[in-house]
């Protein structure tokens, strides 16, 4: 049981490392989608003290 848990953790860690390498410089698809909102967001941020 303990060994299986350790193996799973190690697998997750390997998957995470691979993901980080692969997607290191990918632009955010979310940011691409909300480009039209950026001026509104900046205006909203300007209001923060």
């Amino acid at each position, binding site marked *: 049981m303990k060994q299986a848990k350790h193996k799973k953790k190690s697998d997750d860690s390997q998957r995470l490392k691979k*993901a*980080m390498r692969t997607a290191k410089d990918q632009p*955010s*698809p*979310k940011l691409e989608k*909300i480009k039209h909102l950026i001026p509104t967001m900046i205006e*909203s941020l300007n209001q923060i003290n």
Partner: protein
Amino acid sequence: MKDSYHVQYQKSSSHQFWFVSNGRKNIIKCVQLDLMHSNRNYFHLSLLDYDENSGLLRDNVVSNNGDTLKVLWTVLHCTQLFLKRFPDAKITFTGNSISRDRLFRRQINSILAAIAEHLQIQMQDSKDNCIIFNISRRK
């Protein structure tokens, strides 16, 4: 921060915090912060899922992994780590739909008291039919 996942930071063209969401499935997630305005410390936050088949980051996945609150705590933990490093930064984000925005607002309101000591969170209804969430460091 309270009940959040362990995160790993990576600096690239943006700032990325990575973690594994251990719910019904083990999903790799990334909190990405992109500079929005070159003259100001304004950053856009995206919560993204990593698609292991395509190797791409995706924003449109409803993972339904049963750990929403833990993921929210993790996102807030990332913002806190980021603001510790860049105290003057201001972070903004919005959800994928108005119903998602309302869900975020309810969830954030439910934990606001626990985070108010460190973070200042503003939620603003926009004329573009969305809610804009702004996070900054409490001074």
